[in-house]
Each structure stands twice: as C-alpha cells, then as structure tokens.
C-alpha cells in the first residue's frame, strides 16, 4: 500500500469539502445532515472547518522547525536543517492563510478586517517571527552558519511567546471563542466557551471539524516530506558537480 496515505488524504479532503460546504444551516436541525443556526454567524460558521486547522498547523510547523533546529545544533547534520527550514516555510504559508481567512471572516462578522484581538495579535507576532527567521536566513550565505543561527533565533523567539499569552488578555479583550469574557448574568470574568476544547459544537459539526483537522495535518506532513526531500535532492545534485 505505497500510496495509502495519498488516497486516504484525498478521501478525507473530499469528505471535508462536502461535509463542510453542503449541509444546510437551519433553525432547528432535525436530520444529521443539517447544521444548527448560530445567530450572528449563519453560513459564516463554516469557516471553522478551514480556519482553525490552518492556525493549528502554523503552530505545529513552528514547533517542528524548532525541534529540527535543535537537532541540527546537536548532530550538525545538514539534513536536519533542511527539515527545519521546509517546516518553517510551510508554517509561514499556513500562517498567511490563517491570517487571511481570519481577517476576511472578521470583516463580515466583527465589522473590520483587523481588531487586535489577542489571537489576532498572536498570529501577527508569529507572522513577524517567521518573517524575521527567513530574513535572517537570506542574510547568511555559509550553510552551516545559516543553519546554526536560524535554529538559535527560533529558540529565542519561541521563548517570548508565553509572555504574549499572559500579556494579551490584560491589554485587550478577546473576540475569539475561548478568550476571556465577562459573564453577562453574574458579572464574573471567565473563559468563554471554547468550541475546540470544550466541544460546545453540534455533534455533526464536530465530526467534520475533526476530519478536517486530521486531513490538514496529513496534508502538512505530506507537503513537508516532499519539500525537504526536494531540498535534499538538490543538495546532493549540487555536490556531485
């Protein structure tokens, strides 16, 4: 079953596209193939199947890039750096996708493209970190040096991210589900419903959501695998000349 993963991925993507886009949204869902209506969201609710997985991959890719960066520092194996940089490149791509899908959606739901909501701010900072990472790489010509310094930068930049998690809610209130809000009845500050963690999502939506999450993750690993193998081939090709 050489191509098992490819077929499996194809199947999942079809399922997500059909499952995410076709079921009608109705006031009182009766059959399994109808999504509940959420006031203020309506059809725009479908974004969750595509936006959340890209955001998740942005973070996952960063962690993978950093992990292989550290491995490079340990073993000085240039292939680890290739894995690291291709994960970072894909992460950057998904980061841009998450930002765009999010901000288009925000325009129609919250009124403007950008609100500096904590999570919008954190993805913006992640975008900056990815950008800085590639700016640094392009300024370093010697391969070993490039691998070493970009790995170190990824570690240092990563260490500042917990601070944002702490700082953001103090500076601004969250619009995303899962961020802190004030309960209208009791007046207490609490974390609002988080559809990802608390599963406050209709059962059929949850199924599509998780299939999508899995499909995107497989897609990421497939792309990552391809791109670092391409880099490796290019490298070996050049060495023979």
């Amino acid at each position, binding site marked *: 079953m050489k191509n098992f993963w490819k077929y499996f991925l194809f199947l999942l993507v079809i399922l997500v596209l059909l499952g995410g886009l076709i079921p009608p949204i109705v006031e009182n869902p009766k059959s399994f193939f109808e999504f509940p209506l959420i006031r203020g969201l309506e059809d725009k609710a479908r974004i969750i199947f595509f936006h959340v997985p890209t955001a998740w991959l942005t973070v996952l890719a960063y962690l993978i890039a950093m992990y292989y960066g550290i491995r490079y520092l340990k073993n*000085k194996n240039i292939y680890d750096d290739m894995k690291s940089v291709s994960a970072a490149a894909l992460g950057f791509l998904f980061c841009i996708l998450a930002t765009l899908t999010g901000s288009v959606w925000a325009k129609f739901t919250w009124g403007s493209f950008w609100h500096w909501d904590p999570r919008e701010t954190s993805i913006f900072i992640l975008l900056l970190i990815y950008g800085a990472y590639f700016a640094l790489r392009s300024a370093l010509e*010697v391969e070993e040096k490039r691998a070493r310094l970009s790995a170190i930068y990824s570690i240092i930049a990563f260490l500042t991210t917990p601070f944002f998690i702490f700082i953001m809610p103090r500076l601004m209130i969250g619009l995303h589900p899962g961020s802190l809000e004030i309960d209208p009845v009791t007046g207490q500050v609490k974390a609002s419903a988080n559809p990802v963690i608390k599963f406050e999502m209709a059962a059929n939506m949850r199924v599509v959501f998780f299939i999508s999450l899995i499909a995107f993750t497989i897609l990421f690993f497939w792309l990552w695998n391809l791109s670092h193998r391409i880099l490796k081939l290019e490298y070996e090709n050049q060495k023979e000349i």
Partner: protein
Amino acid sequence: MNKIDLIVTNLKKTFNRRLVFDGLNFEIKSGEKLIITGKNGSGKSTLMKILAGVLTESAGFFQYILNDKKVDRENIYQIVGLVSPYLVLYDEFTAFENLKLFARIRNIKMSDEEINQILKKVGLFDRRNDLVRTYSSGMKQRIKYASAILHNPLVLLLDEPTSNLDLDGKNFVDELVEDFRSDGIVLVATNESQDFKYGQNIINLDNFHNIQVK
C-alpha cells in the same frame, strides 16, 4: 613539568558544501613540534583555528589532555597561543595597552615591567606607546607574537610564522621556537621550505583533501 597531549581523531571540516579536509588523525605529545603544510586553500589556517578552539569542526573531534585531564573546550584559550594572518588587534590602542588589556581579561597578574619585557623580546619596546593603527605589517606580526606568548602557553600554534618579518624578526621566531618550553607543543602551518626546520614531522593536508564522502 606539565604533560600535554593533543589527540586529533577523524577531524573533518566542510565549508559551504566544500570539503576542506577529512579523516585527519594525529597525536602529539609534550616537547614535540609538528609542521603542517599543504597547498593554498588546503585548510592550514582552518585547522589552526579549530585547534585554537575558535572554529567548530564539522565532524570528528580533537582533545587536549593536560596532566591526564581533558581540557574543556571553553578553557582551551588558557593553554593556547595563536599567531595567524587573520589575527587583528585593537588598533585604537597602543601595543602596551593591548597587552595590558589582554593580561587583565585573561585574569593573569602581570606588572607593567613584565609586559615591557615581552615588548622588548619582540622588538617593539621603542614603539610601545604608539597606536597599533600606525604600525607596519611587520610590526603587527610582532605584536601578534607578543599577545600569543603573554600567558606563557603550553601550545603554540603558528600560522605562516615568518610572513612580513625582516631578518631580525625571523631570527626572533627561530629563537622562540627553539627555546619554547620543553613541556610544550608547537604546531607550525607553513608553505615556506625554510620554515620546515621548526619541526620534526610534517603533515601534508593535501593528502586529506581528496577523500570522497560517501
């Protein structure tokens, strides 16, 4: 009397996909002197920098063993003195100020008199209060020697030792290598045949250059 060993095992250095050398193996002990030679670009200076602990090797390893104890990478600087064409001193300071600073940073107690002694030895005493910026290339070479022997190192790494030196300067190097502490190691990287007299054994880096990587 100290006992120092330098063991080099399978040392390899690549620079931007280009192999500099690979599979370098040798071992030298207290009192031995070694010549390293090879064509331009064969990695003599690179090897010297690696052994001075300021450049990292790509694979393999090297180890200084002082009195049966391994020397930590971070402490190599305490036992090594390097003279290299790549060495640049702080040219906004005078020769004396440079040496005084180095002694202080190395945390070794040295009186001004002792520093002057070293300056006399390398023949810079008369110009000790001039900024290094105003020095000729030969004088710059001499001040490098002063900074390399300031802390009385056990290992002396000389990369192109006689470049830019006049006859007087060459005699100084001859003397320095000849009279170098009997428990120390001297490595000389050179292509000048008259420098070959400094050591007993010769390693030609060209032999470690053409090995294909699998």
